[in-house]
């Protein structure tokens, strides 16, 4: 799985951090999401898919092989 964060779309809701805290964080100054791991391991995939589905800005794109 490859994760892409479309940062300009991010609305700083932090939903991704709650769904997949090992893969996403937020900047302190404005809350914009930070992608910690572009190629998360299998054990993280469910949380990342949840994050992508729940992102209110559709800013998380997944490429799955």
């Amino acid at each position, binding site marked *: 799985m490859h994760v892409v964060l479309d940062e300009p*779309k991010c609305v*700083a*809701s932090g939903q991704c951090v709650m769904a997949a805290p090992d893969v996403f964080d*937020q*900047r*302190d100054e404005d*809350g914009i999401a930070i992608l910690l791991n572009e190629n998360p391991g299998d054990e993280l995939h469910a949380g990342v898919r949840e994050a992508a589905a*729940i992102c*209110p*800005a559709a800013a998380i794109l997944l490429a799955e092989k």
Partner: protein
Amino acid sequence: MKRVVIVGASAAGLAVAETLRREGFDGTLTLIGDEPYLPYDRPPLSKQLLTGDWDAERLALRTPADVTGLELDMLLGVPATGLDLADRTVQLGDGTPVPYDGLVIATGVRPRRLPGEGAHVLRTLDDALALRGVLKPGRRLVVVGAGFLGAEVAAVARQRGCDVTLLEPSPVPLAHAVGDEVGRVLTRAHLEHGVSLRCGVSVTEVAEHGVRLADGELVEGDAVLVAVGSLPNTEWLEGSGLSTGDGVMCDEYCEAARNVYAAGDVARWWNPLFDTVMRIEHRTNAAEQGMAAARNLLNPESRKPFAPVPYFWSDQYDMKIQAYGYLRGHDEVAVVEGDVTDGRFLAVYRTGDRLVGALAVGMPPKAIRQWRQAIAVRATWRDAVPDRSAAAV
């Protein structure tokens, strides 16, 4: 279950479709939408799309390839006009019956209007493009309603060089939603940015060159936006037997009738976390509730109550407002961090003996996330806000 029909092709409907496929549903999945577009995002309509920073393509919620991958039977540009629960069919506007084994209603809301012709409303992409076309420098825009939508449009219109008059019936904008103190912060932002804000005025109709107030005064403008709330799209369910007082009435599983669920703006359901019935018109709720409804429909033996902490955000001028919880009808507000006078603060809300909400402007995300967690675990006000006597407003 072989055939699932989703009525409503926006954020909630899309979340239902994606969740069903992700969780292994391989039957026929029909997505019905009255707009002719693939699912697109609405919050930017009053923000980046209206400013002109984004074009319409940027609003797509998924790429065409992702949508294709869902293998949907997609019926766009056609409204659902009826539901027969006994026969398990949805009627379309062109007379076609669509049979289902499972149904999810996600038909959203539409803007409330005022008497008179020619006013803009803002709900759809077409609405937003029409409004954007009139937001030209020097043009006079009258915005009726200083709720979140009206406030966001007023801010964008000022940014685009329009003269803006913002009319609000209550004494303080958004006080019913966020409290007087926070409402006054928002008021101040409008005034600082040159919006002519008039509170306590009642608009009776849209007139030829503006709007008419209850006392007969004409407030002139080149264009009018009416942003006075919305109505759930439930007319097509009349006579179906579903309860549709203010939205589709559901239980805590988002089920309205056997194998009939509702999600998003149109759904009114029992949220056990707050021990109350609510209907939430927030973008994040559309996705969360769509996912919850899909899972409950697909797994009837292991259904879970939908008990979210609602979340919304609003961008106005240089402020980002974020809130968690259910603030409506709160009994008390306390500012626990920052200072409302400098526009950076975190306020928390009490209803009864519970902490029910937190709202932040210009605060670090981690500051508000811990309050969300406290709301999620049903923290009492006494435990969550120990020194409230010092901070109470």
